[in-house]
């Protein structure tokens, strides 16, 4: 095997030897995503709001200690008017009181814990199940794909509230059941997204290369394919969390979630329904907390998606120099 001598005159660039001082720093795809997020004002603001919400959830007992009210304490003398009506916001009760004279502020703070816990745990469970089933479906194809895809279709077409009501009437309401129900009804949409991507990535030459090296199914699914669907999974997870929080609030509102007296935004809203004409604060504050949380997570999710897919970049239009 010889090559014409002209090739010998071409200097072989091996990249070894002296490197000039590097002006251009190679950046990993993740570093680029982080960099884009840092320059996106919406992302920064919503990330700060999410961070504050997480801190509130973690520091709930501390806040209760500072204020001096526990979430279940009933202040029948100071928290209710002579006629037994809840009192409005004041220095003693920042967000007013509820129908039993409990501090709405502390209850909203404690409700954050349930909402985040249910939202995050259910989303993580849903994503794990969805990723594994989606990868298997897209990678193996054929009958496996048909069976798993139909399974996802069935789950997505189940009427989830009817299912939840039926389940709770059998096993009784609890936080664990809520999380299980939310995860069960969320994984299929993750699975569909992952399946679609895995289906196309399985056709790539580097998957073929891995096969020709003798790689097993697990290696190909989790080392070759998964890193390439991770961006979509992360984006989907950040959008799944607010949906799961809303889902949990819905279940609690209907009395299918966490049992009173443990405060959640959902059951607070439910209790406030009879009082909204006389005690607006009873409705507004838990509702606002729910709105703010889901809004922050949704905006963060949108920004993360934009950061992973710069083709949908909005920053050029929003750039201060662009209009000049």
């Amino acid at each position, binding site marked *: *095997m*010889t*090559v*014409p001598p*002209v*090739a010998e005159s*071409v200097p*072989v*660039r*091996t*990249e*070894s030897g002296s490197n000039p001082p590097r002006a251009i720093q*190679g950046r*990993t*795809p993740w570093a680029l995503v982080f960099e884009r997020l840092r320059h996106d004002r919406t992302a920064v603001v919503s990330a700060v709001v999410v961070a504050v919400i997480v801190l509130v959830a973690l520091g709930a007992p501390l806040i209760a200690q500072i204020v001096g009210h526990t979430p279940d304490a009933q202040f029948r003398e100071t928290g209710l008017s002579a006629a037994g009506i809840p009192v409005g916001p004041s220095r003693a009760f920042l967000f007013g009181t509820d129908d039993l004279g409990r501090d709405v502020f502390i209850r909203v703070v404690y409700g954050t814990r349930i909402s985040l816990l249910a939202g995050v745990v259910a989303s993580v469970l849903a994503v794990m199940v969805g990723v594994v089933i989606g990868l298997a479906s897209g990678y193996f194809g054929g009958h496996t794909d048909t069976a798993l895809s139909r399974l996802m279709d069935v789950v997505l077409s189940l009427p989830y509230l009817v299912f939840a009501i039926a389940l709770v009437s059998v096993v009784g309401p609890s936080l664990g059941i809520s999380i299980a129900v939310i995860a069960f009804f969320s994984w299929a949409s993750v699975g569909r997204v992952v399946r679609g991507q895995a289906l196309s990535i399985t056709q*790539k*030459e*580097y998957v*073929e*290369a*891995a*096969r*020709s*090296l*003798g*790689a*097993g199914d697990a*290696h190909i699914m989790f*080392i*070759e394919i998964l*890193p*390439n669907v*991770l961006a979509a999974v992360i984006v989907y997870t950040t959008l799944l969390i607010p949906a799961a929080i809303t889902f949990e609030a819905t279940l609690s509102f209907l009395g299918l979630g966490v049992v009173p007296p443990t405060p959640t935004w959902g059951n607070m809203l439910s209790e406030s329904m009879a009082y909204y004409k006389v005690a607006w604060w009873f409705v507004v504050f838990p509702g606002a907390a729910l709105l703010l949380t889901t809004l922050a997570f949704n905006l963060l999710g949108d920004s993360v998606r934009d950061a992973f897919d710069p083709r949908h970049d909005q920053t050029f239009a929003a750039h201060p120099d662009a209009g000049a």
Partner: protein
Amino acid sequence: MTGATVPASLAAPPGGRAGDVLVRIEHVVKHFPVKSSALFRRRAETVHAVDGVTVEIRRGETLGLVGETGCGKSTLARCITRLYELTSGRVIFDGVDVSRFSRAELRPFRRRMQMIFQDPYGSLNPRRRVGSIIGDPFAIHGVAEGEDRKRRVQDLMAVVGLNPEHYNRFPSEFSGGQRQRIGIARAIALRPDLVVCDEPVSALDVSIRAQVLNLLADLQRDLGLTYLFISHDLSVVRHTSDRVAVMYLGKIVEIAPAHDLYQHPRHPYTVALLSAVPVPDPDVADAQQRIILSGDPPSPLDPPTGCRFHPRCPKAQAICAAQDPALVPHLADAPDHRAACHFPVADGEILATAAGAAP
């Protein structure tokens, strides 16, 4: 490449003697079913990608495989490396029939036959670091772990002419030629006997091709590799290959030692292919007779009867459409120069340009 020496971890004496048969493929057939569902009528069609190929690859040689796009070269390569299941036929690797082996049975053989892919962009996972890509063969076959693996990967990077310090970079930080070197490092990591090169330089810049070809030649010499070298570029194959096989529509139409094939082509298709090779001297190029084949290659869904080349062949006669010619030596050729043609081209014979060729 030229400077780097092969480290001890790579250099081991090759098993078996040079010249004996390493891979023998017999009557290999690969058909792809195509489901075309018109609304109510459903008919099954088949792409005849590879249709009865028998060929031997000898230890230590480079066998070139040329042909037009879509003639089944890459499919044949993937049949040999068992990335595709054979429809029928046998692949005998070093005396063992591996064509019906399960994935588990195939694993030890995977170490011994590797592949270099055409697309240096598609064949490297964009989300993985180069070190872990090249380290894959060691990880998958449990050859080396941790620091040992890292050292071996860096040795390999040096051997193929990459800077070992770039171990932690992503494929996107390398040029096309460097990426192909990464693919080569991965392929030679386990010291395979056979390396199937599926158009390894077709996607590269012309100025880079010679470097990569030299690297492949050096590795073959140092490691005692056997190459199946697939290309549609006849000038590349001429310089790299000891023997050349010409494929047309899923069949081998001619196979011969490289110099023999280029000097004395027997099959009209080979003659036409050779006449299409560009010549850098314009005077020579003007004097050359170019044979322009009319029409496109027939659809592999419905290949022609008899000799598959007959609808485009200037020498075709009635028998060509009726009878499939055998791959045998013609005229005064040595037994290792075989062509599948009823009317082989004699030396110096002028082929009429596209005469009698029905579209």
